[in-house]
């Protein structure tokens, strides 16, 4: 069983020590890790869900723009990062599990290791309290 690249392993260890929600995917978009603060957003625990394909985790969010128009997965920063191997940032709204609308800012960037190879993507979510 091959292990992940060390830049992915170290990203998980970093995410584990942060208080903001962090999502880590492989290059295919499979969600291979999310930390405890991210579990609140997904409404799932990583230990229970394990690795989730993009089709599955992409549906859990209900992202909308400022006019409440739904955003397609292709508009989400992390999905764009994986497609273009480029950093993105976007502020939008998601419906929380309790039905409340939450404004969030997402920053995503590709993980590129020492050998220059693209090994995955990271997204960091900021709950934006300034409505």
């Amino acid at each position, binding site marked *: 069983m091959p292990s992940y*690249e060390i830049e992915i392993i170290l990203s998980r260890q970093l995410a584990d020590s942060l208080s903001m929600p962090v999502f880590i995917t492989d290059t295919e978009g499979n969600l291979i890790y999310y930390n405890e603060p991210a579990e609140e957003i997904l409404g799932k625990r990583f230990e229970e869900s394990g690795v989730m394909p993009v089709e599955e985790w992409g549906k859990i969010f209900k992202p909308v723009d400022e006019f409440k128009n739904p955003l397609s997965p292709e508009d989400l920063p992390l999905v764009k990062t994986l497609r273009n191997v480029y950093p993105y940032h976007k502020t939008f709204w998601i419906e929380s599990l309790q039905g409340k609308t939450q404004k969030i800012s997402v920053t995503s960037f590709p993980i590129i290791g020492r*050998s220059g190879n693209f090994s995955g993507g990271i997204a960091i979510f900021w709950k934006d309290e300034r409505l």
Partner: protein
Amino acid sequence: MNIKLWGVRGSIPVSDPDTRQYGGHTSCVVVSQDGHFLVLDGGSGMQKLNFGQELTGKRVDILLTHFHLDHLQGLGFFKSLFNPSMEVHIWGPASSTHSLHARLSRYLSPPLFPVLIRDLPCQLHLHEIANSEFEIGPFRIRSRYVIHPGPTVGFRISNGNGAFAYIPDHEPALGLAGILDDPHWISGYDLAAGADLLYHDAQYTDEEYRYKQGWGHSGLSDTMKFATLSGVKKLLLAHHDPGRTDVQIQDLLTELLLTGQYDFPFEMAGEGMEYKIGT
């Protein structure tokens, strides 16, 4: 393949009456088979090597895990480098900024060393490696980046019927969660999995590691956990702290033997020890 340990000390060479049993030279291990020689790391133990009649050809390969001085300080004293009839190959980890030649030159040039790389009389060949697979004589070699400050690899050397894993500087437990139980998430797992012999960093006691997290080395319990999860057949605990005496090393081993349940044999690496794997 035959394996001989020429230097097992971490960080800096020591020379005291109370370190003589395990030895004071820094990292250097020689793997050989059918007249082919691989020298793993160029610590101070390398200075004692002298290949002569036992070489089949005129080639020797040096595999460097990284460029910390305790893995490099013997290189300038390696006799084959000064022999014009010798073909010397140096394999070392690539960095995203400087070439292998540039990084070796930092040490092999004044003011740190009197001779420049370009003035070495041997036929020198440099090879940059990363997460690589390559062959040298009867050996298949896998290198993988592992957790340690600066570009650092470990090696897995196979000869078709046995595998030796060499990871002298490694901190797989770095992070709040320590070593995770899932092989996907363990640095160095691909190198060590099922190896006949694992040579691994065990520089610190668990108490010392609490104060030295991020320094790139392992506490004893983490080394044992890494070896257990990797399913190795035998473990050598190495890269002994320079402040550790023979008696203290022996005591740590005794404590491990008395307190832990492990389904593989293990011992403290000592200078001069020899092992045979496969054929």
